[in-house]
């Protein structure tokens, strides 16, 4: 198992995602001899997990069952322990495409936060790329390093505990893309620019507030960035269900021999309703291109 590579059989030390049903999931670390309690009973790692195929059904001690899933960055995003507000898959997907990330890309990111985006970047740039991620909070940086190790991707990432606005990313001239999710991104633009390759690269800054976006765009323009664009993307989840619509009774039809109230009194329709409230605002995404030096 690795977050950047699929495997078929569960092994000791793997991180797996237990699916309990109805959007209820939890990550667990597989250890020989260990047990995990769920509402359906206990899962015994040695007999129920190790050696089983990912995607299998596991029957718990009380008789209920769960599925064991292979971890992916998307599953991790909805199951990881939050240390900060995180980025969700909708934003992550657009960032990935618009920064043109692919195997071999060298990416700089700050702040690392809870590692939601980091895991996604690592998965996309593997096996030949590298992520340089900067986190100014020492404990979070440490936790991130630990997680990358557990998820078997530490060879693809370097975590630096420093302030990106003062000290930059720790590397220069090698990045294809830079991502900023910090309170004052305009203060890091100079460092972002110097981290990027001479031939150019892509930049993305994520900010919850429009004032931050304005200052960032100004800084980008001052530093010679081009194709500056700001957008916001929102995901709408449709609730698929069968609904029962009663049919009206207009009384017996003229000349009809039928007794009233025969036939169907309602009809079942399959439909999907959008949620009453759409997902709230996460942040504005500002993209720009650093041209060739």
């Amino acid at each position, binding site marked *: 198992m690795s977050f950047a590579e699929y495997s*078929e059989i569960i092994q000791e030390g793997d991180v797996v995602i237990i699916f309990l049903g109805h959007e209820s999931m939890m990550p667990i670390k597989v250890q020989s001899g260990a047990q995990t309690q769920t509402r359906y009973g206990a899962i015994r790692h040695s007999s129920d997990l190790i050696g089983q195929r990912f995607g299998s059904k596991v029957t718990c001690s009380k008789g209920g069952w769960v599925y064991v899933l292979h971890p992916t960055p998307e599953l991790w995003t909805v199951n990881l322990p939050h240390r900060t507000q995180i980025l969700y898959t909708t934003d992550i997907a657009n960032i990935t*495409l618009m920064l043109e990330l692919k195997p071999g890309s060298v990416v700089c990111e700050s702040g690392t936060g809870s590692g939601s985006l980091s895991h996604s970047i690592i998965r996309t740039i593997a096996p030949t790329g590298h992520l340089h991620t900067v986190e100014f909070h020492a404990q979070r940086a440490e936790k991130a390093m630990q997680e990358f190790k557990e998820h078997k991707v530490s060879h693809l990432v370097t975590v630096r505990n420093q302030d990106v606005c003062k000290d930059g990313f720790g590397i220069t001239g090698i990045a294809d893309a830079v991502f900023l999710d910090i309170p004052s991104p305009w203060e890091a633009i100079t460092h972002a620019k110097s981290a990027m390759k001479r031939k150019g690269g892509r930049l993305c800054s994520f900010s919850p507030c429009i004032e931050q976006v304005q200052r960032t765009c100004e800084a980008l323009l001052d530093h010679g960035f081009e194709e500056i664009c700001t957008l*916001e993307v929102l995901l709408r989840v449709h609730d698929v269900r069968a609904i029962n619509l009663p049919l009206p009774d207009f009384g017996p039809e003229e000349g009809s021999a039928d007794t009233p109230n025969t036939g169907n009194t309602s009809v079942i329709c399959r439909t999907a309703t959008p949620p009453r409230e759409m997902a709230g605002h996460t942040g504005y995404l500002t993209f720009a291109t650093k041209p060739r030096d």
Partner: protein
Amino acid sequence: MAESVNDSDAESRISFGDYVVLKRGDVFKSVQVENKKKVIFEKQWFFLDNAVGQLFGTRFEIGAGGSLKLKAAKHSGDSLDSKEAGQDNRHILDDGKSQKLTRDDIETLKEQGLKGQHLYSIVNVFVYFSHLRYDTLAQILTLGNIHAGSKILVFETCAGLVLGSVMERMGGFGSVIQMYPGGGPTRAGMESFGFPSHFHETLHEFPLCKVNALLAGTLDLSEKDADGNRRSESSQETSGVSEERSSEPQSMEVSVDQQEEMRRVERERLREQKAQEKKVKMEEKRKKLASAAALLEGRNADGLVIASRFHPCPVLMGLLKFIAPSRPFVVYCQYREPLIECYTKLREQGGAISLRLTDSWLRHYQVLPNRTHPVLLMSGGGGYLLSGTTVAADSAKTRNQHKSEEHVAKRLKLDEISSA
């Protein structure tokens, strides 16, 4: 400023045959660089010959006779000519100058799998040809966990845009199997990505019409298969022709025409050559089919992407059989109802969890001092996605167990009643 010709990053330069993207402002066009071929872009005619040998990202001007000239100095980009909040237009003079286009900004970009530049540009070009919006494409690639080293099944009718995007995210590692309806896979859009040749070795194709045979284990991959009829026909053809040839010269002996005879010989040679080429092609096709079948029959693919004009339900139900458990699948459809059907079917059948039917809204902003506001809202038109994760299908054994338990329970109840 002169080009700092420091190829320390060892980039390749534009050459004939490359696909490049021309950009002027927000307008993009994908073209192939060909010798002395006139290109039209933004109402201007020119030749791309002078771009050959230059690096991507180079800016050109159009000179006399349509030849490209390197742009000397860098000038600031076009500024947005929008009104500042509070101002009005009473002082703007119409001097006609703002209408004339004096300088063109043509950036020539080279798209390469390993050095991908400005995919955004390529994607924008294809927005005009496809109803698949780029934010929807972004979701497909991420929800599908498309990454290097996996084995992905793709079924698309988006002219190769989805296929190319998937291949780019695979980086030449792993394999992609394109399922195709009809005669052959369409990949025009994929060519524009300009992948290095080794990427093509990871791309396979398999015809939908042979899926059932493969699933049943009855797919014939022997040499006589796949248009075996045609092959014997063609050999009949050639033998027929040679018969003709042997009979003809006799009748021609009456009027000896050496040139005519030479032409006949030449035609015969070409016919034989074509027959031979056809034979080689058939063999290639058979080999390709066999290699794709080998990848599929393990039923352990790592992901499935469907984006087509076909009804997604049967496509999805058919192709899911090739996917391993605990792997993501994503289905794109321009319309919602077919995906509702898929969702319902999957719920009934089992074998998939975390089903989600989604679409996304995209809003662009103009960000300028005192002039910041949204400019464009794209909603609904980007199509819909159904995504989910496969799980091990319920085995017949467990289902039967459940049934027999039910029967036992019922019997007990009856017994209780009768004994009461």
